[in-house]
């Protein structure tokens, strides 16, 4: 599966062609929601994203292509969410990554207290290439489910970086967080998904 955003004709988008815009929504609605959730929380995210799509559609004729269409849209939803956050005078705290005990690979129990060597090493995998993993349909469902329950900021960073392949600096601007924080969130998200693959390799289940 490849990214098909590039296949959407930007001239048709600028002319506000419905079909082209539908294709864009289909590809980018989930990342847009994940950005809004990370900034403003669950309850207002959907509303903010709907407003962002309307605003994007209105402004498409003025899209000059200085950034990619993805970056342009993520910036719109990010600005909508931040502006709504100010209006609502709400605060959304950074996720407390030091208290997130769900990443087994980073828990103290995995390592010897002195020396920091593996006490419980990573298991062997019999499916040991991306192509082999891509053929496992049940695993795909397990991954989708785990992505859907990642904490909001981890989910947004994971989707923006590993799925949408946005640059780290762009992600920092979109979410208004530091690069080191983005890197920690990304690593945690990957390790949680890697644990799903570990379990799948061992049991064939999620």
């Amino acid at each position, binding site marked *: *599966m*490849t*990214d*098909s*955003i590039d296949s959407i004709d930007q001239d048709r988008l600028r002319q506000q062609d*419905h079909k082209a*815009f*539908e294709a864009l*929504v*289909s*590809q*980018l*609605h*989930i*990342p847009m929601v994940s950005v809004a959730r990370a900034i403003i929380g669950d309850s207002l995210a959907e509303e903010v994203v*709907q407003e962002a*799509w*309307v605003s994007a*559609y*209105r402004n498409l004729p003025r899209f000059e292509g200085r950034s990619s269409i993805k970056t342009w849209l993520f910036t719109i939803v990010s600005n909508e969410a931040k502006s709504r956050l100010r209006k609502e005078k709400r605060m959304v705290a950074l996720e407390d990554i030091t208290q997130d005990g769900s990443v087994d*690979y*980073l828990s103290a129990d*995995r*390592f010897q207290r002195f*020396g*920091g*060597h*593996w006490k419980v*090493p*990573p298991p*062997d*995998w019999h499916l*040991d*290439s*991306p192509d082999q*993993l*891509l053929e496992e349909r049940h695993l*795909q469902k397990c*991954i*989708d489910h785990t*992505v859907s329950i990642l904490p909001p900021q981890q989910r947004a960073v*994971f*989707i923006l970086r*590993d*799925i*949408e*392949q946005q640059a*780290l600096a762009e992600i920092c601007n979109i979410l208004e967080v530091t690069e080191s924080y983005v*890197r920690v969130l*990304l*690593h945690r998200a*990957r*390790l949680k*998904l*890697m644990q799903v*693959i*570990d379990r799948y390799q061992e049991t064939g289940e999620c």
Partner: protein
Amino acid sequence: MLNCRDVAHEASDYIDHNLSWWRRLMFHLHLFICVKCRRFVSHVHITRDFLRQRGPLKASDAEVQQVMTNIDNDKPHQD
């Protein structure tokens, strides 16, 4: 010298080339002597590439339709 715990914490930075050259060298040295960490880093690498190759998470038809309905409803208010 790095230990396995350090490697577990910094594996993504290593595969994404976000470590300083000195830290990267230390990482290489550790991987040279530690088969368990080589396996761990390889799994992080495979996980990242697998997730990237899966492609975008597509919205449902209902989600797309909701957006398009809002856009149609907004049209009379333009200009």
